[in-house]
């Protein structure tokens, strides 16, 4: 073990801040992260074994025990459950002989579930280690498992043509892009990256900031912060160096636009980062890529190399004196790392715990230096804005919401996939566009967004002041159990809460248990009051946006579909407290006796 650990440490200069990369390499080597390795890492990184575990145990793709030769992660998102998850999960257990959360008796297959892996347009989907399989059926599962047993690798099965992972064709062999409507900003024709960089890198950074400000471009990650202002604050912060980070931790269930942007337009994204670097005087850039997108890594690295070879990245870009390079930082499975300060912590090799603000990252970000963090879509937009001009961009969309928005459409509709819409169109317009005929509800912006009633909200417009969508749009028709959807979303937040603050850690579990009462028909009217008041407490007192939004599936569904919660007015049980199950309560006595008898004999 020793020599391989030493070479891994050497690869990253024994730098504690690169711990996530180190842990990935250790896991790739041993299949999990063994105690011996942790002890050796601790001494090599001048820290303790428990400190290494503190970081590793935060991320659900890091394993602390053997998990079979192959570990299969089946996506259990609510969309997957609408598209055949049950049959696929049964087939997986039957074929592998493993149960979820465990390994089969021969130690070949580890079986796990995971939240949305960014493939809601082609669910059910799973990861086999770092390779992805989409549109699963029980038959497909039988085939995949049989071939793995026969010694084929996941790569060989998913990519029968043997394409190199650096190639776009390889990515296309694994996943579809499903772009159903391209628009003026993305995908319609390639942005001429070289021309854009040639035009702007020679100019004064103030001009760049001015152009970004005049275009009134707002961050596409969800918060909608002015990009020009973010750059200016970052540039004006007093420091010897600065960083640009691209947030590609697309973890919001239902969204997959960043996956498609990185597949189809990576150069447009990287050029946007380079422009931001010139504007903010940054020397280094990081793309924080979620672990679920590991299959994009080799391809993206090849694209970065392409830029370097053409003199568009690296030292003295285009002879204009700008030094800027980009590296890819892999995540390891934590939704909370979509929060920019949690993402920065993760980049530094720590747990993805959101920082207290202030200070904001534009003042003190990565390694304590001013850092401009923007989303993938934002950087791609930046390049386009710089190509065609601020006034062109400002003319798109509405007066208050400029430009376009990429929507990731999934659920009950004829054509799930990517749609570029101009701000200002209505919900009904989009539903007709995607072929959603019998839609009852729409979950906009993922679980952290809001539940809409098609009947009540169909006329509402996509714009920052009304439906300010982060890109995820899940459609549910009249056959779906909306309360079950709410429960799924709450389970997601319980699983993904980092646990650092009381309201989010504790409160989300309480909300989940309350929803269970409603689903079991054991709720009473006061439980609705509890949902509202507890939800409000969690939203107001939590430390970051996760707790700030986690009660929204309940609160917004309650607002739009109060009838779902009406069962509480007619409790099924004729008792004072319907949630108290006296049969179950008294059975504890018998169970305890049985256990004692067993112990005595």
């Amino acid at each position: 073990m020793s020599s391989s650990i030493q070479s891994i440490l050497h690869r990253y200069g024994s730098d504690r801040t690169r711990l996530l990369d180190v842990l990935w390499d250790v896991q790739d080597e041993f299949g999990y992260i063994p105690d011996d390795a942790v002890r050796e890492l601790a001494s090599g990184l001048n820290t303790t074994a428990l400190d290494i575990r503190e970081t590793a145990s935060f991320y659900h793709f890091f394993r602390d025990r053997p998990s079979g030769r192959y570990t299969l992660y089946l996506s259990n998102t609510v969309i997957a459950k609408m598209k055949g998850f049950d049959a696929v999960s049964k087939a997986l257990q039957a074929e592998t002989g493993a149960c979820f959360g465990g390994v089969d008796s021969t130690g070949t297959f580890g079986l796990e579930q995971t939240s949305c892996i960014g493939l809601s347009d082609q669910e059910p989907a799973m990861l086999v280690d770092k390779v992805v399989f989409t549109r699963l059926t029980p038959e497909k599962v039988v085939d995949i498992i049989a071939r793995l047993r026969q010694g084929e690798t996941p790569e060989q099965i998913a990519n029968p043509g043997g394409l190199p992972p650096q190639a776009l064709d390889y990515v296309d062999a694994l996943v579809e892009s499903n772009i159903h409507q391209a628009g003026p900003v993305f995908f319609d024709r390639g942005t001429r990256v070289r021309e854009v960089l040639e035009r702007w890198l020679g100019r004064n950074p103030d001009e760049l900031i001015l152009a970004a400000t005049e275009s009134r471009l707002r961050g596409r990650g969800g918060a909608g912060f002015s990009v020009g202002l973010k750059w200016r604050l970052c540039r004006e912060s007093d420091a010897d160096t600065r960083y640009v980070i691209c947030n590609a931790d697309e973890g919001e269930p239902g969204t997959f636009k960043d996956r498609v942007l990185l597949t189809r337009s990576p150069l447009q994204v990287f050029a946007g980062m380079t422009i931001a670097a010139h504007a903010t005087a940054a020397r280094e850039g990081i793309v924080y890529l979620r672990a679920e997108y590991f299959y994009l890594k080799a391809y993206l690295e090849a694209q970065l190399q392409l830029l370097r070879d053409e003199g568009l990245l690296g030292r003295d870009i285009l002879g204009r004196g700008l030094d800027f390079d980009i590296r890819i930082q892999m995540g390891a499975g934590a939704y909370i790392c979509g929060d920019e300060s949690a993402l920065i912590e993760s980049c530094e090799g720590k747990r993805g715990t959101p920082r207290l603000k202030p200070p904001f990252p534009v003042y003190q970000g990565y390694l304590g230096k001013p850092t401009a963090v923007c989303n993938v879509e934002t950087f791609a937009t930046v390049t386009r804005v710089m190509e065609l001009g601020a006034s062109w961009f400002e003319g798109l969309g509405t007066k208050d919401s400029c430009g376009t928005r990429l929507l990731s459409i999934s659920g009950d509709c004829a054509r799930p996939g990517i749609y570029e819409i101009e701000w200002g169109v209505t919900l009904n317009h989009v539903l007709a566009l995607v072929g959603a005929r019998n839609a009852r509800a729409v979950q906009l912006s993922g679980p952290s967004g809001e539940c809409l009633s098609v009947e009540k909200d169909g006329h509402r417009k996509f714009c920052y002041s009304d439906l300010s969508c982060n890109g995820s749009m899940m459609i549910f028709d009249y056959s779906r159990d909306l309360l079950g959807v709410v429960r799924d979303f709450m389970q997601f937040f319980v699983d993904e809460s980092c646990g650092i603050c009381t309201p989010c850690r504790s409160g989300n579990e309480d909300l989940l248990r309350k929803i269970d009462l409603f689903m079991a028909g054991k709720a009473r009217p006061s439980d609705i009051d509890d949902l509202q008041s507890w939800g409000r407490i969690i939203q107001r007192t939590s430390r970051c946006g996760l707790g700030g939004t986690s009660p929204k599936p309940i609160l917004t569904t309650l607002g739009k579909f109060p009838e779902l919660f009406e069962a509480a007015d007619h409790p099924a049980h004729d008792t004072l407290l319907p949630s108290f199950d006296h049969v179950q309560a008294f059975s504890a006595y018998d169970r305890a006796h049985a256990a004692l008898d067993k112990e005595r004999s």
Partner: protein
Amino acid sequence: MIKLVIDGKPVEAEEGANLVEAAGENGVYIPTLCYLKGEPCIGTCRVCSVRVNGNVTAACSVTVDDGMEVDVDEPEVADMRRALVEALFAEGNHNCPSCEKSGRCELQAVGYETGMVVSRFPYRYPPRDRDVGARHLWLERDRCIFCQRCVEHIRDRTSGHKIFSINGRGSRARIEIDVELADQMPPEQVREAMDICPVGCILEKRVGFDVPMGQRKFEVQTHRERATEGTSNE
């Protein structure tokens, strides 16, 4: 000095002061659990939530500003603080009458101060393992409220390494102790670790119940009195 308004009353505070301290110096009590005077804010328990210029914020993370308007006693935000204390009681296993920290436990003291009677949240009775591996102290995890004071503030004096750390995420996370480093802790640091723990999770071995009831920390002087009369709450 700068001027701010707390509960409608104009007060003065030193520029750059922490809101918890500024309020205390003006006789306004803000309950706290993870906060330690003079140490960097860790902002985990949220029990000091107040309204600052209309928005609910953890007071420990706020630096006072000229013209700031703060509401502490306003009923809704006071209820939020009580709810968070209740949540902590429901989340772990807290049996005050049998706990050796009773009377010097900050969670208990803050429970009294916020007016908690019983938790509105269902008690969970979670199974939690205690850790008795270290020579001089042990962890009774039933009582841990995950404030992370020990993680942040207790370090090995030669290497600076953490003695206490976190394992896991979310509600499954728990505090771990580095036995090797813990066994090298000098007696006064063992005592410091026990004192810094706001509840009865970190306990010194062989010295249980050394202060008689009625003479314990918060029985002699309440949490509120300590915060508003300048006595340390640690």
